[in-house]
């Protein structure tokens, strides 16, 4: 183990962050530890379609040495991987064994509105102790996932992977494949996490600017520069280390339900092409993933095949999925290393020819600091930030729930984002992604809906255009129209924005199709646009996939009629 303990004077942190070597997921019989259950308990069962029986129930889990109760699917965290074939008519019978309402949303799948699984929009939810059967055709292939859309059940464990095999075979075949589902677990009740954030939004940030850090800066950059650097942030009451609301201070990061010390391992034979289906199934975390010693060929983004691109590292924002192919030739183990964006912890898995092998785990990188372009957008004269554009702020953006306005957002898609900009190896950016076959609808969008992602860190209030969900009217997409959604991020955090029911076809800064996605990460002070074809009637959720941002109001209802 080469993980760095985060806080001095607190030796228990190491174990907490890395989890237990014997972490395990409880089955109905009680807490089962992986140490005794390795042979009998695969980390994640896989169910083959088209008909599935899933039970949502509470079960005991132990990721950190403390027994906790999770909301599980068929007793596991994550739930079983659901595998079906493109073209299947899928039937999923859910029994809700909880005492509260539950729901499952099929993330990234284009389904009829009443099968989408969002209580209050799609249906009434699945009440306690009742059953519900989802029915929809699997019209697409690729890597997706499912999760609860009820309060914080997703944070409590209700999520799992979906793999849909293409009817005509994979475009980029591999010899074997593994699902790598990364998630975040807290021993704290998520309701408590949310309440704490609303009381003091920086409560999980143990990387705040300090006098010690200032003296270090002054030594390295000179006193004057160090003062100038602090001055602006402090004047604005903003924090340049505001990268993740919830951090490794409470999270343990999991791969397929295993804490780092539990070391989930996927096997390969040297020389094989191995497809990794990378899923960020976390509630509130962004990960930077690399496999030291292996190049990754990215072949799909959000389930959609892309023109292959070779990278050494990629950022997985919440809810995004990427398929990568790796070809390990040596008879050795490789570490899949996914550190959180604030470097407060990591998820880790191993690829190895045989179980039990492991490779070095890299040290966490130093915590990055937000740069000027993350606050101001386009820096004058810096053409690498893209074309000069002016944002159009909404009249509702001047109230107590908005803490800043970005007038000149940057538009470039080739920025890997804070913490990845100074890498010497190749890091994936949205500018590298080109969906095979191009756009599904080549009509030029007939109108633009501009929305701003807004927030007030001090109040932990989030919204679109300064309005919370409860204050805002629905957004109307006219049936059949092709329209453009332009998002401007007026905050200093990344927001993965997810539109249900329809694809988001990301456009290049100058227009023109870039990549088809279900979740578009918008960087701080960035403007992105995507085209949408409003061809799926009904009421849809449209929200930030940071669970606590969504709950705090960064959510809208989209009506296609």
């Amino acid at each position, binding site marked *: 183990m080469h993980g760095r303990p985060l806080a001095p004077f607190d030796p228990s942190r190491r174990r907490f962050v890395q989890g237990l070597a014997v972490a395990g997921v409880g089955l109905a019989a009680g807490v089962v530890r992986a140490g005794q259950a390795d042979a009998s308990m695969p980390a994640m069962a896989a169910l083959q379609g088209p008909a599935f029986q899933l039970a949502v129930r509470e079960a005991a889990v132990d990721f950190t040495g403390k027994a906790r109760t999770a909301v599980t699917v068929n007793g596991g965290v994550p739930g079983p991987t659901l595998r079906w074939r493109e073209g299947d008519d899928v039937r999923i019978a859910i029994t809700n064994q909880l005492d509260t309402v539950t729901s499952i949303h099929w993330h990234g799948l284009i389904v009829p509105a009443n099968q989408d699984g969002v209580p209050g929009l799609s249906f009434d*939810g699945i009440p306690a102790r009742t059953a519900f059967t989802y029915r929809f055709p699997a019209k697409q292939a690729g890597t997706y996932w499912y999760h609860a859309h009820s309060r914080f059940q997703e944070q409590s464990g209700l999520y799992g992977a979906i793999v849909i095999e293409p009817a005509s075979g994979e475009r980029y075949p591999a010899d074997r494949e593994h699902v790598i589902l990364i998630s975040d677990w807290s021993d704290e009740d998520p309701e408590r996490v949310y309440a704490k954030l*609303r009381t003091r939004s920086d409560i999980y940030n143990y990387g705040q600017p300090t006098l010690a850090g200032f003296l270090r800066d002054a030594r390295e950059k000179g006193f004057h520069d160090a003062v*100038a650097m602090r001055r602006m942030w402090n*004047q604005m009451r903003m924090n340049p280390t505001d990268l993740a609301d919830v951090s490794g201070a409470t999270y343990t990061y999991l791969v397929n339900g295993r804490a780092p010390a539990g070391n989930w391992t996927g096997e390969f034979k040297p020389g094989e092409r191995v497809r990794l289906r990378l899923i960020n199934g976390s509630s509130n975390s962004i990960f930077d993933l690399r496999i030291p010693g292996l190049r990754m060929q990215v072949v799909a983004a959000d389930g959609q095949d892309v023109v292959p691109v070779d990278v050494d590292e990629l950022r997985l924002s919440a809810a995004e999925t990427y398929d990568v192919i790796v070809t390990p030739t040596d008879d050795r183990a490789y570490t899949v290393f996914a550190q959180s964006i604030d470097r407060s912890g990591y998820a880790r898995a191993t690829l190895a020819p045989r179980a039990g092998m492991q490779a070095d785990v890299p040290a966490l990188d130093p915590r990055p600091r937000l740069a000027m372009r993350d606050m101001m957008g386009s820096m*004058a004269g810096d053409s690498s930030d893209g074309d000069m554009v002016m944002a159009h702020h909404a009249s509702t953006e001047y109230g*107590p729930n908005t803490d800043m306005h970005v007038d000149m957002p940057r538009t470039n898609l080739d920025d890997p984002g804070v913490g990845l900009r100074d890498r010497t190896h190749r890091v994936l950016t949205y500018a590298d992604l080109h969906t095979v076959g191009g756009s599904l609808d080549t009509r030029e969008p007939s109108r633009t809906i501009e929305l701003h992602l807004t927030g007030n860190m001090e109040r932990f209030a989030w919204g679109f255009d300064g309005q919370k969900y409860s204050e805002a009217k629905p957004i109307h997409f006219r049936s059949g129209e092709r329209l453009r959604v332009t998002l401007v991020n007026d905050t200093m955090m990344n927001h993965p924005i997810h539109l249900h029911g329809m694809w988001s076809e990301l456009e290049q800064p100058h227009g023109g199709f870039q990549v088809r996605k279900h979740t578009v990460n918008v960087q701080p002070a960035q403007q992105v646009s995507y085209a949408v074809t409003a061809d799926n009637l009904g009421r849809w959720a449209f929200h930030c996939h940071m669970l606590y941002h*969504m709950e705090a109001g960064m959510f809208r209802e989209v009506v296609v009629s």
Partner: protein
Amino acid sequence: MKRVYLALMLWPLGAAAQDMSQMQGMDHGAMDHSAMHGQAAAQPAQAASPPATAPAQDVHAGHDMSGMDGMGAMKMGPMQGGKAPADARNPDYSDGIMPAAMHGMAMHDMDDTAASSMLLIDKLEAFAGQGGHGQSWEAEGWYGNDTNKLWLRTEGEREGRRPQDGDVEALWSHAIATFWDTQLGVRSDFGEGPKRQWAAFGVQGLAPYWFELEATAYVGQGGRTAGRVRAEYELRFTQRLILQPELEVNAYGKADPQRALRSGIASVEGGLRLRYEFARAFAPYVGVAWEHLTGGTADLASEQGRRVTDRRWVAGVRLWF
């Protein structure tokens, strides 16, 4: 010494005043931006090409957008706060469609207006001063959502097991700007002398440079008036070792001899407390605090043979629930 205190006190107030004026819509955009661009140039990683003296102007040229057709007329607002410009976009894309909740569908069970609550016992301490020893406390708590909260605060001290002086306030706190809330409510004084009741109104918020500020005016029976200003700062040595300077000034509009007060600024209190956060919710501290009676109230105290100035060593714990 007093001058230093006043300067310390007025600095954050000045900052707050500037911030409040922005809040009221005065356009400080130019000021904000120039401050920022100075910084932009100073950050070596970002300072791609502009020479050290020119960048503020360069950037402003960019902001003016004078070179861009059709955009030159667009007015830039301040980066924080301010009022919506006349050409602000309408956020309504509904075409008159009502939300699902209006169609009998159960409301999506998110809760962006849910109430939450907090209790912070900022000080719970023992003190040993030149004028005696005892205990003192300061606490605040609230219940509510982002916009409206019921806010409770109390502070006071006791010596020799008797409450010496204390008050409790109950306020309706209402968000009016990004970093500011107005407060409206009541205050009740207890301890030595007769009890006093006040109506209270004021503001509370976060001034630039992270100063926590509280300024409250009080109106009591018999034409009494009072004011209290409190400023607090947190200086982090490390993630867990934090120095908390604070300053409080109390003033009265009218003499209240039964509570040993004369009109004018009555007391100035300062403190420096060094805490170690074992957890956010539990931080023991040690520190030093000063209390000065001033003006007529100090004269009165001298006449009565009481101390005008007291320096105290304090030790206590900060708790958060």
